[in-house]
Structure formats: C-alpha cells, structure tokens
C-alpha cells in the first residue's frame, strides 16, 4: 500500500484527478465527509489531505511514501526527499516585485519582505546584494506600499493582485509547479509500486 499525501485545495483536487486517470482512483476522496484517510486496497493506495506546506514534512518523515508539493516549498524547506516528476500543474513563478518605477539604491541595504526567506536569501547571495529579510506570513504585497520593505519576493500567478496594488515584477527567480516527491527510504522498500505509479503519472503529464 502506498501512502500518498495530497495538498488540500484546488491544486490537490486537480492532482487527484491525474492519479485517478493514471489508474489509482479512490472516489471517496472527493465526497464531502469528515474522514481523514481514504483507502483503495485494490489500487494499492491510501490518500490523505494535508496543508500544502506540510506535504513535504509528511513525506520526509515517512508518514507518506509519496506526496505532491510545490517547488516553492521544496526550495524553501529543502526536505530530504526524491523529486521524481514535474507534474506541470499549479504553474506560477517565484518573483521579485516592487512598486512601479522602483529603482534599487545600491548604497542602502535592500529590505525584502517575504514568506520565502531562504529562497530570497539564496537569490540575493548569488547577486552579491546585501539585504534585510522581513519574514511575513501573508499579505506580502502590502509591505512595500506601507514602506515596510523596498521589494517583495513572492509567488506570482497572473500578476493581477500586483497590478491592482501598483506593484510590478522586476525579476523572475524560478518557475514553480507541483512536483511528485517520494520518501527516500520508502522508495527503497516499495520500489516497484512507486515506479509503476511514476510511470503512469508520467503518461498523464505527457497527455496533458
């Protein structure tokens, strides 16, 4: 039996549809119920919904053999997991955004508001730019408007929220999408099951 951690929300539902089409269905998963864990013994899978940012923890710690996590989470937390497949869904980008017309003043430390401190720090280290990270847990866009930060590092999907707040993307750091991840130890002991699932999921990605 493969334990699979899915991210709650629209992305998780989309990804589950891929698993279903790939031959690993579990219809009870999409029903409204208070159940937390959903089995399909015949298909050899057990699904559970978890908070998107927790998927990698469940997989790294072996509570799940397989999971689906955004590349942003993998880059930020760098869990010890295998990243087996780019599912090519949930596509967006990690970007630096700033108030329209922003000019970086290199004589000052750049104040960066973000939920993704490691990604921001790694990015600016490669540029050799001195920064002050302001770690926020949400509503990042408001930080430069109120003068809390000069720029933000955040996920940008369509850019609508940025535009409505007179912000603009000034640099793309990395493209983001959902990835199929696996526990390293679980992979050793359930190799054939993981490989079979991986192969079928790969076909689904190619079809899409």
């Amino acid at each position: 039996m493969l334990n699979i951690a899915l991210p709650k929300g629209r992305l998780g539902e989309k990804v589950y549809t891929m698993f279903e089409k790939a031959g690993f269905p579990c219809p009870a998963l999409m029903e409204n119920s208070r159940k937390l864990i959903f089995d399909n013994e015949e298909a050899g899978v057990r699904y559970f919904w978890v908070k998107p940012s927790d998927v990698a923890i469940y997989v790294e710690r072996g509570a799940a053999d397989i999971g689906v996590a955004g590349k942003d989470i993998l880059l930020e937390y760098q869990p010890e997991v295998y990243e087996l497949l780019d599912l090519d869904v949930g596509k967006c980008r990690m970007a630096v955004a700033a108030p329209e017309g922003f000019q970086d003043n290199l004589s000052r430390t750049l104040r960066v508001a973000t939920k993704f401190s490691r990604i921001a720090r790694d990015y600016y280290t490669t540029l050799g730019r001195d920064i002050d990270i302001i770690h926020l847990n949400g509503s990042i866009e408001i930080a430069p408007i109120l003068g809390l930060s000069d720029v933000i590092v955040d996920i940008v999907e369509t850019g609508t929220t940025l535009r409505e707040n007179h912000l603009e993307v000034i640099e793309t750091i990395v493209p983001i999408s959902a990835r199929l991840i696996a526990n390293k130890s679980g992979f050793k002991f359930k190799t054939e099951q993981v490989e079979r699932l991986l192969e079928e999921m790969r076909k689904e990605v190619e079809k899409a």
Partner: protein
Amino acid sequence: MQINDRVMDPQERIGFRLRSLYSDAGYCRYRMSKFEEYDLYSRNKDFLFSEGVITFTDTNGRLMALKPDVTLSIIKNGRDIPGALRRVYYHENVYRVASAEDGFREQTQVGVECMGDVDSSCVAEVLKLAAKSLELCSADYVLEISHLGILGTLTDAVASGERMREALLQCAGEKNLHGISRICQENGLAKGAEEPLKQLLNLYGPPRTVMPKIRKLAEENGAAEYADELGQAAAAFAGSDMENRIRIDFSASGDTKYYNGIVFKGFISGIPGSVLSGGQYDRLMRRMGRKDRAVGFAVFLNMLERLTEGGQADA
C-alpha cells in the same frame, strides 16, 4: 554479574552489538576523550553532517568545539604509515543541529574508519561490515552503493562551471531528472546532451541487473575504470545472503570536496531516512595533509530509537 540487556534501550543494545562486531573483525576502539579546537571543524565545515558547532573556551584560552564529528579527529590524530592499514571503530556522542527548530541535540554514533593502504579488498571489507551492521539492526534493510567517479565524469561532461556542477549533483541526489534537463537547457546545452547522466540515474537496482548496463554506459563515457571499481565492490556480496539487500543507486552521493570513489548509504524499512552513511574520503585526507587513503562509515543510533527487538520500526 551478568548484565540483563533488557534494561538497555534499542540504541544502547545495537551500539554494543556493533562494537562487538567491529572488535571481532579486528578493529581497535578509538576514544575521543578530549576536545578539538574549533578551527579543525571550521576548515572542513562542509564535511560535517550539520551546520553549527557548540564552542567553548578552554582553560588555556583556546576556542574549542564540543564534538560535532569524530572522523576529523581520527584523521588529525593519526599519522601515515606506508604499507600499513589502521582499523578503528568508535562509539561516541556527537552534538549537532538536528533542525533549525530543534537546535542542538546529543546524538550517538558508532562508526568504522580504515586508513592507510586502502585497496579494493579493504573497501569490500568495509562495505560488508556496513551490510552486517544493518543486518544487526533489522533483517529488512537495503545498502545502496554508488561511485562518485562515474557520477562525476558524466556530470562534468555537461557542467560548465562549479555552480552548474553543484546544481546537477543536487538534482542527482534528488533523482530529479527534469531538474537536470532544465539546468542544461538554461545553460544552452544541445538537446539530449544530458541523456547519459539521466540514464545513469535511472540505472538503480540489484547489481546483477544493473551492472552490465552501467559498465556499457561508463565505457561509452570514459568512466570504465570506475565501473570496474564499482563492480568489484558489488561482487563482494555475490553469492552471499546479503546479495539481495544490495542496490546500486547513483542518487547516493557525498560532497566531492571530501569523498571520492565508492560511497554508500543504509536504510531500514520503516525508518524514514538513512541510518548509515559512508564512503572513501581520500580527498579529505589530502586536505588535512595526509597521504593515506581512507574509507569508513557511521551508524546513526538516534535513528534507531523506535526499532523493536525484532528489527521492526515501531510508530
């Protein structure tokens, strides 16, 4: 008085059994009864399992470190003896950062180091000892073996700089084949240039199944000599009970500033991470001014806390 080993927790029980195993194999105990200067670790910080070292000022004013590692101390305190082989084992507490949230933790580690005139038979001996160590913990284990020479050759064939090389090796450790393609594409490589590297990473499994394909791929890419070394290492298990527990897997890697040649990791069913890690570290020896070659491994006893007497992981 006989000691009832039921009073011991799994870590202690396994720790003492491993010590017996290594002692019976002719390894002498290395005791790390004093502390090393912080400088020893700061010069080789990437070799350490975690960032961060607990420091303190000794009575003579020197800045010391509270044992983040044992291997560096063994290398520093040994000396080269041409033609000889020094076999030691240790059973020590080390102090490392478990995670950013958890801070420093005391962890117990048992390990084996073999230094001197290390040849393929010595590497095979250490590999067998690693497999026996895992077997002592649980019957359901896997020892995966890789060769940094083969992985390095195929990576260097596409990497155009140290940063790209590091990124590719990180992807290799994650079995992240799409990541390898993306990096090569971003660096303007011709389509398909990365295929040999991706093929290598896809060649994982029992040696009998994958070695012929690895040899062929290595020959085609100028790494035949390394494939021979890997083949010799895997052949050490041929016909033994341990053979079906051995896997070749090039995602098992180590920092190439320190490690070279054979590297390996051990896993036990139900335990989420590797419980054993080791390899040849001739490069670390050179960095520390030693001419000897070396191979060794460590067993992380803290990972075995939830292992029952029967070798099952207890949730």
